[in-house]
């Protein structure tokens, strides 16, 4: 049985500008949402605060719950989580009380009073102090940074065989980040700066494969984060883990295509680069769709049947996987073309002037 015809030959390369437009649209949408919502909706892990998850046996809604809790949670957010049939809600406040047990008990008592005996149960309660929240934010940023860094080294080494240069680049970046951090500059700014520098270095040092993979990764992260912001979903530690996982996963796909491109390039010299790219993407299309398909199938099961706690995690993975497949086909390889086109222009001009 074959889902994708073996001799399929879609002209992906010609589609690349339109693809960039589509990607650009979604990324801009995410950025706009970021500005509109005023930043990421950080979970209690990162922002500090208290979170209480309650299960109701009757249908209800956030307004009713807030009414039942009145003065207790004056300034909190109440959100439904999971499937509509679960009737589970997350109550979130910025209260930083060491008396968490008391708070969660009081919440249960008040809700039981309002909804009836046994109709409201506190499933879990979490309190994170501001210090811990701050620490976790730092850790998260570094985790993203280091993941991207190590992956850059690996890609550069494997595909360009320029282990030396990439190692030097990474060393410079690590030292640079360390120094900037010691100077007390905002960590987020430093990391974004470092990413930009990495990209520029890839361009300058002629590491197109690394650059292509990095850009496709950043694309996936931005789109997933953007959708989260748009839907006002909480960005928790689990969501970060999902992001890091899909970074690794999206890279899988990209590597498979790059491998094929390299293999095809080795076969002969006089090949039109556009044709090579097209052929490689088409040849690996079957495998890309199948793999993503099976993982999406499994994650979808998690999303539908896995319960509320893992809901957001599977949602992030789902979006990331779809975006990852898209970026493999439409983003990673075209970047190589841009690079090649840009660097080819100069030699052409040289030849033209020398021959005259």
């Amino acid at each position, binding site marked *: 049985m074959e889902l994708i015809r073996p001799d399929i030959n879609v002209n992906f390369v010609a589609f690349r500008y339109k693809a960039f437009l589509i990607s650009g649209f979604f990324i801009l949408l995410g950025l706009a949402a970021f500005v509109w919502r005023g930043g990421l909706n950080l979970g209690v892990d990162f922002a500090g605060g208290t979170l209480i998850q309650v299960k109701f046996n009757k249908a209800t809604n956030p307004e009713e719950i807030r009414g039942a809790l009145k003065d207790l949670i004056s300034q909190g957010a109440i959100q439904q989580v999971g499937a509509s049939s679960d009737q589970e809600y997350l109550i979130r406040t910025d209260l930083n009380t060491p008396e968490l047990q008391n708070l969660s008990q009081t919440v249960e008592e008040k809700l039981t009073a309002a909804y009836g005996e046994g109709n409201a149960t506190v499933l879990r309660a979490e309190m994170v102090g501001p210090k811990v929240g701050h620490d976790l934010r730092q850790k998260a940023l570094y985790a993203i940074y280091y993941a991207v860094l190590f992956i850059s080294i690996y890609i550069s080494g494997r595909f360009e065989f320029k282990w030396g240069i990439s190692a030097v680049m990474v060393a410079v970046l690590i030292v640079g980040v360390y120094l900037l951090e010691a100077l007390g500059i905002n960590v987020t700014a430093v990391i974004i700066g470092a990413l930009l520098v990495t990209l520029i270095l890839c361009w300058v040092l002629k590491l197109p494969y690394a650059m292509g993979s990095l850009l496709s990764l950043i694309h996936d992260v931005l789109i997933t984060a953007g959708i989260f912001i748009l839907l006002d979903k909480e960005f928790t530690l689990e969501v970060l883990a999902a992001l890091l996982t899909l970074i690794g996963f999206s890279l899988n796909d990209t590597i*498979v295509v790059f*491998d094929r491109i390299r293999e095809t390039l080795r076969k002969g010299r006089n090949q039109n680069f556009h044709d090579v790219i097209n052929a490689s993407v088409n040849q690996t299309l079957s495998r890309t769709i199948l793999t993503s398909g*099976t993982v999406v199938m499994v994650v979808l099961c998690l999303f539908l049947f896995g319960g509320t706690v893992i809901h957001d995690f599977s949602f992030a993975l789902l979006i990331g996987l779809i975006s990852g497949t898209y970026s493999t086909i439409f983003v990673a390889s075209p970047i190589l073309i841009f690079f090649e086109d840009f660097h080819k222009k100069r030699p052409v001009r040289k030849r033209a002037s020398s021959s005259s």
Partner: protein
Amino acid sequence: MKNLKWRAILVAAILLVGIVYLVPTFTPTLPPGWIGILPKDKIHLGLDLQGGMHLVLEVEANKAVENTVDRLAEELKERLREARVAFSKVARGKKYDIEVLMPDAQQQANLREIADKNFPVLKMAGSETTPEGMMVQLVMVETEVDHIRKLAIAQALETIRNRIDQFGVSEPDIRPEGEDRIMVQLPGIKDPQRALALIGKTALLEFKLVDEGVTPPETKEAKVPAGDKVYPMKHLDRTTGRTVESQIVLQDKTLMTGEYITDAKVSLDSQYNAPYVSLEFDPQGARIFERVTAANVKKRMAIVLDGAVYSAPVIQEKISGGRASITGSFSMEEARDLAIVLRAGALPAPVKILEQRTVGPALGQDSISKGILASLIGGLLVIAFMVVYYKFAGLVADFALAFNVLLVLSGMAAFGATLTLPGIAGIALIIGMAVDANVLIYERIREELRLGKTPKAALDAGYDKATLTIIDANVTTLIAAVVLFQFGTGPIRGFAVTLTIGLVANLFTAIVVTRVIFDYLMIQRHIKTLSI
């Protein structure tokens, strides 16, 4: 041929080891003959699957240093009095220093001598003339400050561990985190409130004298005589059965603390059937107690716990033998918990709760069942798909998949890793990714077959070309998993661990195991065609 035999043996051996490590998790007890041979490690369940409480405490080590400085100030006062050196005030200054106020500069040399001889950890920082007199500042040396801090944190860890041991939680996990934090995990705990009270209680027991001549002031601002302090007192009114709060004036000087307690037990008062805690002191404590009670017969001695007076009985006579009892308005549970903290010792410094998570057992159970259900459904879908799409080869891939999951689970049991809800999701992910490796190989084989190669040649070519790509792909996700392990906590770590083990196992099952099966069929059984 030989190569195949060795590979087949390797696969069978690993399969066996995998099953063996998984047995303890699924059978409650091992049959008697096997206990010595088989490993006993089970898979640990994380808090999000078991229910329980997770705490991160911060030891306020600075307080410990301040307390020590206070104590040194008291001792210095005593020494100065003994040496008849004039002073108007000896107290802790702003940080870790003691300020001594003397009427003039004359006695400064004596002060220096006393300080040098008896207080090696203090050093003279300077002196200045103030309107009230000569103010000399003594500072605690840096090394001592560090030492006290480290000691406080280590002691706090031990004390909390002792308390939890006595509380009786199965498989508690208490470990230091960073420089001054302690992480506590209590899986399956039924009464988190009580555990929290037990852990956070400083439990500083002090014996002080009641200043009988003074009545507690009506308002807060009213002053008490020098050397006295007002303390709250809890008192059970036996007639009404209610706890009454009142105030009592005590001499601030602590005669003795609870550091000499060797044992604390709960007993019942024969008269009212009320629980009380009986204490036993070590020889040094017994001596001090004897001296204190002998010097203060007929006076009232207050027993102060964490700054609140529990009882203030009259000392009838000198008490030797090193025993005392604390009566008060306790419930049986309160008395038991009090005995636990007194036995385990006081915390050297207060602890602050930085992070607290409680997961109810209902949610834990729910999470397990839902997580496993989702993974099973996903897994079955994938298995069915592989058979439909790749026919017999799909079946082989499915076997490798099952083997992969087996290795992940037994690997976790072997390493004593913790399974969390994200970990279950990780296993689901592995199911999807394990298929990827096989898809890579099979698509390659199909390509080679289309080019006209024989099944055997196609098989070889497929595996050859795909292996490097599979390794690449697994390595990149592995990098992400390792980073997550480094920077993640709790449930995320569980995810990283399952992912890592799964990826490594995947390399084995997708490449080696499936190859062995195909080779066996092609070589030994001389199957000519490839059902793929």
